[in-house]
């Protein structure tokens, strides 16, 4: 889209974030066939609009209610209309949708606030909740999820005990097939589920998870624990904990990572509102739009990897120069997520930026397969979206003919450097040796 058009669109949008700019009628975009809704873009837009119209009628009392809803909510939290516009544009592109969807994304967000919502805490550490309510900036995403549509979320709701439980049970009954279910934490199945009990009757977490899943409109497992069992399921799995998808026969959308990025959750929900079903998932149940990129490919330290420049121990010269962390056990090459592009805590940082390797927290069983975290483990059995292979085998496949496997690459560079340093006079020590000296001081 040209600059001029953008300006016009912006002008139009200033009046109403939900209105469709005029030039949208002459749109021309290539539909992503992965979403599998319809082949014809006209048809797609028509269906999306029809769905949104229908939902809006259901959710809002009248037009005024519809238009003021988000503004009421956001102004309470100090978010301006402009912030919301920016955010909806950002989310549209993060979802890999054409720009024409921007106002529709905004409308979907509006509807989302009136969609009943249950957040279940299972065997968790509440890290995902924290990522929302405490640390992520109150972008519209967090507000929509946490402060508006929540019918049951133990961590923030005012009532406790009977009053809290009543709200969950009522929602499951009344909003059958409509409510959004987000589950955080693994489900302990050992001891008949009694490793976790909730409520005055002492119902097991397993029972509640199953029951609540049955009637949900869409089910999201947030974080690695809910997705794949996470740390409770790590060897020896004392409570026989499993991911949510193992205890329900409904489709579960996995948003792994530790903690999961709120953008990925809200994006998935918005897409659900837009088209009425889950986004396209990879073989590990993760939305492709967020989890199709390998961290290693998008890492700002990648150049150093290519150049064979590595951090060899903590605090060495390479660490100060932000060299590649592969030798310190970085699991970026085997991990699919968007951390390197979306980043954590309002674009402040992500593990590699703080000089620590990725621990692979978006992958199943990373507690067993990626450990020890701070050493390169080339023979680890790593589960990849499509195949199961050792890291080394995978490295070979990854770099193919262009280069050797990652480990081979690293070793090769190391040898080459040593040779070079030997060639030169003894006074000149290799980089890594120098670093040792620095450290000894």
């Amino acid at each position, binding site marked *: 889209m040209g600059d001029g058009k953008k300006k016009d669109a912006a002008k139009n949008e200033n009046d109403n974030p939900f209105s469709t700019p005029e030039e949208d009628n002459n749109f021309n975009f290539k539909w992503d066939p992965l979403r599998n809704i319809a082949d014809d873009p006209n048809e797609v837009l028509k269906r999306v609009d029809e769905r949104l119209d229908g939902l809006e009628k259901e959710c809002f009392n009248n037009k005024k209610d519809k238009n003021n809803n988000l503004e009421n909510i956001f102004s309470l939290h100090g978010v301006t209309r402009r912030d919301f516009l920016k955010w909806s544009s950002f989310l549209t592109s993060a979802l890999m949708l054409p720009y024409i969807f921007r106002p529709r994304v905004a409308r979907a967000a509006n509807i989302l606030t009136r969609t009943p919502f249950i957040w279940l805490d299972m065997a968790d550490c509440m*890290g995902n909740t924290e990522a929302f309510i405490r640390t992520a900036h109150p972008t519209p995403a967090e507000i929509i999820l946490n402060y508006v549509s929540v019918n049951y979320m133990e961590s923030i709701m*005012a009532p406790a005990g009977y009053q809290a439980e009543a709200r969950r049970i009522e929602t499951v009954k009344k909003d059958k097939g409509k409510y959004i279910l987000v589950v955080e934490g693994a489900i302990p199945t050992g001891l008949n589920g009694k490793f976790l009990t909730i409520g005055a009757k002492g119902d097991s977490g397993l029972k509640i998870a199953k029951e609540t899943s049955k009637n949900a409109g869409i089910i999201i497992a947030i974080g690695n624990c809910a997705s794949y069992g996470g740390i409770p399921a790590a060897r020896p799995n004392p409570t026989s904990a499993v991911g949510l998808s193992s205890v329900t026969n409904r489709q579960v959308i996995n948003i792994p990572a530790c903690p999961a990025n709120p953008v990925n959750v809200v994006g998935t929900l918005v897409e659900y509102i837009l088209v009425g079903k889950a986004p396209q998932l990879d073989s590990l149940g993760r939305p492709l739009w967020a989890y199709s990129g390998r961290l290693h490919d998008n890492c700002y330290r990648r150049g150093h990897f290519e150049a064979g420049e590595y951090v060899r121990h903590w*605090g060495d010269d390479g660490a100060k120069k932000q060299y590649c962390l592969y030798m310190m056990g970085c699991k970026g090459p085997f991990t699919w997520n968007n951390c390197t592009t979306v980043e954590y805590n309002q674009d402040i940082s992500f593990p590699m930026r703080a000089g620590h390797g990725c621990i692979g927290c978006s992958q199943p069983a990373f507690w067993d397969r990626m450990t020890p975290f701070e050493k390169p483990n080339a023979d680890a059995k790593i589960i990849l979206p499509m195949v199961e292979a050792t890291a080394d085998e995978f490295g070979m496949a990854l770099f193919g003919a262009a280069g050797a496997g990652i480990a081979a690459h690293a070793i090769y560079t190391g040898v080459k450097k040593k040779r070079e340093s030997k060639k030169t006079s003894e006074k000149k020590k290799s980089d890594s040796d120098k670093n040792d000296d620095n450290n000894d001081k």
Partner: protein
Amino acid sequence: MATKIIVDPITRIEGHLRIEAILNGNEITEAYSSGTLFRGIELILNGRAPEDAGLFAQRICGVCTYAHYEAATWAVENALGIHPPKNARIARNILKGAQMVQDHLVHFYQLAGLDWVDIVSALKADPKKTMDLAYAYTKTPYNASLARFEEVKARLNNFVKSGQLGPFAGGYWGNPSYKLPPEGNLLIASHYLDNLNILRIPAQIIAILGAKDPHPQTCVVGGISSIADIINPQRMDDILFRINKITDFVNNAYIPDLLTAAQFYKEEALQGIGGGLKNYLAYGAFPQTDDESPDNYYLMRGVILGRDLSKVHNLDEKKITEFVTHSWYKYPNEKIGLNPSVGITDPDYTGLNKDGSLKEDEKYSWLKSPRYENKAMEVGPLARTLVAYAKGNKTIKSLVDYVLKTAGLPVTALFSTLGRTAARGIEAKYVADALEPWTLELIKNAAVDQTSWTKYDMPSKEITGIGLDEAPRGALGHWVRIKNKQITHYQIVVPSTWNASPRDAFNNPGAYEASLVGVKLANASEPLEILRTVHSFDPCLACAVHIIDPKTNEIKKYKIC
């Protein structure tokens, strides 16, 4: 007539907690606290690389995530007999300080705030009178103007009118135990909203030095990995800039709001409601010297017995034992407690009564009962503040005296729910004030010394280590045994295990249980007062998980009775 009420789930906490209370009339005569989740992270740590201990242990809790990371790292460093270099020591202090302040802020406003503040009553407030209240305890109140209070009131009004109360729905609004006038409610509600923006700032500081929050990745055994950020002036400036915002909010919102609340809830404190146990324990944290000597900790270490503030006993970690008499575990002899370094855990779930209530005379919780000299102890900000106060820490003393004097309360008023809440605020200020000097010290040091890691060799022989630290909600201890470069035994005693523990072999109640006795409910169907007292401990139950079977490493099958 005695009646029993069950509150489960306790909401606005971290983790899964149930409280059962026996009521005589409207007064609680006995209370039972039960952790209702078991994950077994200690067992999972067995056989792992010691370097990974911190990354595993921090997943115990997504709230005090950094405290566990540091305590685990300290335990391994203690076993190796090494200390991190100065840069790493200071950077760790900044990380934990930021976490502590953030946690206290979230606690006061988001988690416990709704127990003291009636949101619906705020709609009746007069914004002009609210202004007077805002200026009562500070000359520069945070984000306080007539326009702001009118705006907040109007927005709350819209919010309530829209019928979409979200998390505020179903609260105990209008309960006579809410004592603040509408203006007080509006003032604190307004800061409640401000804090939604503030609370991400300390998290950003953690992210600058630690990659992300929760679950940072930087505190490696022997040092810290983010040296590139430490030597980057722009990144350090990012930290300083944020610290200013935090201290501003603490000084001009948190502390004045606390004093406002104290003014109206004074009576409760004078009656000592929610005081509970009389013993207090603090491990201390924030090493100020490079040998990390506990004598020079910024938060002081010590033990107070029988509320006797004239004497602070030295901590002897060997006196810490854990009982399982009323916990779903088995010991060969349940009359005796075991020190965590030799702790055994053998889960023994005996279930609930048929009606779903706890079997109070038998086992009823997934938490063990840690005791010091066989005494039940309270840990947390109140314990730390009392230890520092009794030890004569000048800054703490002047802060405590100021708060007490302004509220017109005696020192004994500290032994209450309100006192616990006030101690948390005092500590938030004490720690927030230290962040800037620490950061400046780090910048100064990094200019001449860029070491960030101490080299070590992991021996094959058996070594043991202890990491005694302070999480925001209290004393946190990690015990580790390492052999053949692998963890062979791991035991964690977390703050909420101390505070939320069930009764021990001598039938001594835990801190929650003791503090609830004597609490009166204005309305037995609304457990507001129970929440207020339990929340004042800042419960964090995911931490309080327990298991290890060091010998067999096997998982047993359990049947429910």
